[in-house]
């Protein structure tokens, strides 16, 4: 099974500050994803990537940027953090097999924006 790690695991940030969430996967998967999970909304896709150098907007990209500098790493960047971005963030990876793909999730990052 794919190994997906995230850092930090917990983060407290101030409103207006910059936050970078990092994700690393070691199984050479093409696709990587960032989700947030909130009570009442379930899992929502923020950004995703098909490979190094590519980023695509998901369903709720506003207020977030993403960066995929390499096959292994995918970052989520909050340039100006707001309290509404308090959430649990999950990174996932997948081989990119189209309609047969399976996604593997990291342990999550709990972000609190004060």
């Amino acid at each position, binding site marked *: 099974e794919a190994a997906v790690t995230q850092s930090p695991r917990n983060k407290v940030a101030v409103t207006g500050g910059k936050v970078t969430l990092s994700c690393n996967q070691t199984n050479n998967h093409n696709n990587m994803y960032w989700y947030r999970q909130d009570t009442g909304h379930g*899992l929502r896709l923020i950004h995703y990537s098909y490979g190094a150098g590519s980023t695509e907007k998901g369903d709720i990209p506003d207020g977030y940027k993403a960066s995929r500098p390499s096959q292994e790493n995918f970052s989520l960047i909050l340039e100006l953090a707001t309290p509404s971005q308090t959430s649990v963030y999950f990174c996932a990876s997948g081989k990119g097999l189209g*309609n*047969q*793909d*399976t*996604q593997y*999730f990291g*342990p999550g990052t709990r972000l609190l924006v004060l």
Partner: protein
Amino acid sequence: GQQVQQSPASLVLQEGENAELQCNFSSTATQLQWFYQSPGGSLVSLLSNPSGTKHTGRLTSTTVTKERRSSLHISSSQTTDSGTYLCAIPRSGSFNKLTFGAGTRLAVCP
């Protein structure tokens, strides 16, 4: 848009009882994935089952594609099975994006 509905929303069992979780989806799915999420934890992929029946340990998933439904059967439940079970399918026309159900919250009591 594409929808995934899970039932029941919550389920309480005594240890040793069996659980049957349902997932219904609004369009034909070429892949279906069941996840487990422990309280406060991450999602762990349990099974990928686009059609037919698959087994792993005490879990059995049966997907009837033309009826747009899948079930997850947990036999001889244990307290460690407690958590939330999510199903997800790829979106039509964008296979790499998943649509998730809201989940079934399972509590297994000793």
